[in-house]
């Protein structure tokens, strides 16, 4: 499912891509500007639109950026160290807080990593619940992104805020569905090794169906927002063009990669869980600019809504966990080994690399977050851009600092 080739005819898009020469992120400012005339602006760590606590040191010539140096780690919470101190069962609620707008995807990734080590496969009902949750979470996460992207462009006291409020209204209704399923609005702690903790309550299907029917009707509004709003187009077209080769080499994945014309989705290309049987239509766009990323995310929301409706039809009966008594810590003890499992989170490839040493705690657990890779595009995209465009570009990459810093 290509969303058309973006909004630009292919020759123009190719031209834009060719022009986006790869700037040097390691530019030596001292020799570039021996007089010290550049304005050094510290964007963040507390700034309305750095999406958390990112700090970017910008060297500005007038308002045009010469060099951008991101400084990470203002939210480094030592999750990987904490994983070494906790048992496999206790880790799930911790990783919820990594990518805090898509907690379900985090749980899915880490538990799939553990299951790879154990060699178990969740029962079909649990697979269904997992796929459902992941797709619902994708819609919720993209909704939040659209809202904050509007804030980046329109300001907290303007039209952007209106967009933000509207997307949050929809997001709240998805969170309600999760609250009914898991008892929690935000950090669910609902998956565990070998399956799920919470079964689908009675009447939940109807609630989800209604919610998503409403949302899919309202996506039209956001769609018209892209197609008809001249200011939106002017601000996003040709801004922050990501070269596909650079993106691959930087390990960028997810909507940012797909908006650059690389047709790659883990759900289809390295299927896991229920996606082995499910046909996922992957949305791509070729322009690689901020508007292409917006369109790809919109199309992904549509596709996720379709998948949710499809999955709700065929939830099989049965157990929701293959393992017995998994509620007690210490019961999960994989054999020594190293495993890697990856899922397609709303932001891209979210992987877990686990080293087991035969005890009930992982020896080393690394979370491969897509946000870190997406953010590493910024030093390449920012030079030559206006300050306003840097904000928009940063917003369109959708970094979640909890996942970047971990």
């Amino acid at each position: 499912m290509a969303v058309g080739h973006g909004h630009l005819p292919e020759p123009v898009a190719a031209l834009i891509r060719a022009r986006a020469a790869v700037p040097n992120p390691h530019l030596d400012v001292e020799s570039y500007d021996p007089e010290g005339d550049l304005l050094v602006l510290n964007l963040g760590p507390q700034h309305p639109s750095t999406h958390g606590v990112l700090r970017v040191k910008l060297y500005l010539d007038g308002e045009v950026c010469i060099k951008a140096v991101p400084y990470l780690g203002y939210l480094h919470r030592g999750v990987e160290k904490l994983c070494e101190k906790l048992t496999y069962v206790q880790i799930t609620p911790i990783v919820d807080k990594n990518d805090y707008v898509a907690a379900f995807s985090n749980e899915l990734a880490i538990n799939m990593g553990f299951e790879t080590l154990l060699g178990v496969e969740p029962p079909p009902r649990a697979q269904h619940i997992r796929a459902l949750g992941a797709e619902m979470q994708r819609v919720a996460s993209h909704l939040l992104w659209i809202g904050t992207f509007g804030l980046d462009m329109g300001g907290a006291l303007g039209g952007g805020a209106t967009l933000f409020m509207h997307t949050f209204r929809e997001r709240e209704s998805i969170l309600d569905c999760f609250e009914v399923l898991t008892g929690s609005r935000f950090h669910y702690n609902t998956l565990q090794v070998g399956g799920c903790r919470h079964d689908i309550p009675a009447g939940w299907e109807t609630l989800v169906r209604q919610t998503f029917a409403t949302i899919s009707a309202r996506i039209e509004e956001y769609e018209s927002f892209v197609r008809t709003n001249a200011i939106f187009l002017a601000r996003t077209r040709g801004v922050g063009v990501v070269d596909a080769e650079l993106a691959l080499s930087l390990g960028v994945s997810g909507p940012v990669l797909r908006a650059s014309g690389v047709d790659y989705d883990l759900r289809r290309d390295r299927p896991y869980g229920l996606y082995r049987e499910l046909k996922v239509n992957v949305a791509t766009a070729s322009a690689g600019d901020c508007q292409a990323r917006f369109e790809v995310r919109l199309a992904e929301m549509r596709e996720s809504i379709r998948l949710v409706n499809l999955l709700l039809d065929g939830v099989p009966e049965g157990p929701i966990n293959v393992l017995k008594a998994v509620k007690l810590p210490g019961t999960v003890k994989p054999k020594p080994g190293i495993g890697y499992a990856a899922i397609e989170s709303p932001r891209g490839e979210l992987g877990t690399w686990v080293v087991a040493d035969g005890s009930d705690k992982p020896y080393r657990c690394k979370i491969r977050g897509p946000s870190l890779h997406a953010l590493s595009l910024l030093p390449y995209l920012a030079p030559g851009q206006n300050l306003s465009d840097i904000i928009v570009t940063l917003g369109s990459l959708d970094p979640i600092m909890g996942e970047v810093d971990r």
Partner: protein
Amino acid sequence: MAVNEENETFVHPLYEALERFPGADVGLTTADRVLTWGLTNALWVFPMATSCCGIEFMAAACSRFDLDRIGTIARGTPRQCDVMVIAGTITVKMAPRVKKLWDQMPEPKWAIAMGSCAISGDFYRDIYSVVPGVDTFMPVDVYVPGCPPNPDALFMGIRRLQEKIRLKREGKWTEPELRPDTPGLRSPAIGRLGDPGRDACTSQAQLDAVLGLDPGGGLRRPDQKS
């Protein structure tokens, strides 16, 4: 009383002169009440949103909950804010910045620690890079427990802060705000206790966990027996 730029408190001479004027007490207390009313009903918030709680703070400002109803809006610069809401984990690298931003806010100012990370560090409290509670380096007026707290809990926090300001300005004694007990932190948003699918051993395990916790706060170390 006022605060000058060297952060010393002093009584304005005009205020002293006014106090000696006959009938001034009635007028002054009324004026003070009006001023307090203004102060409590226009609390502009500086969102020190670092992580998950920041998203719930946004949700509180959004249509379902709407902080604007009680006159609270978020401003991007600390110079124009009255309340700093510390929403999220504060790390060692971030803490100096938080302190600096807190110092940049004009008096009178208050702080709300939103979420268990800001209150005590929660389960990151033993991590090498996380500050175990923001009240270790700056004053906190109201604690809003939860992980993250629901937006309505933040509303309740702001209401508590208003009440506190009112009582302070009237010179009444207020209960000093303490870190909430950890059992309060652990209470789920929706109690699933009555659910038929819930195992009895879970309840027992939760009860044991609660009974074994440090009642004084959340700073219990593994080596420290209470």
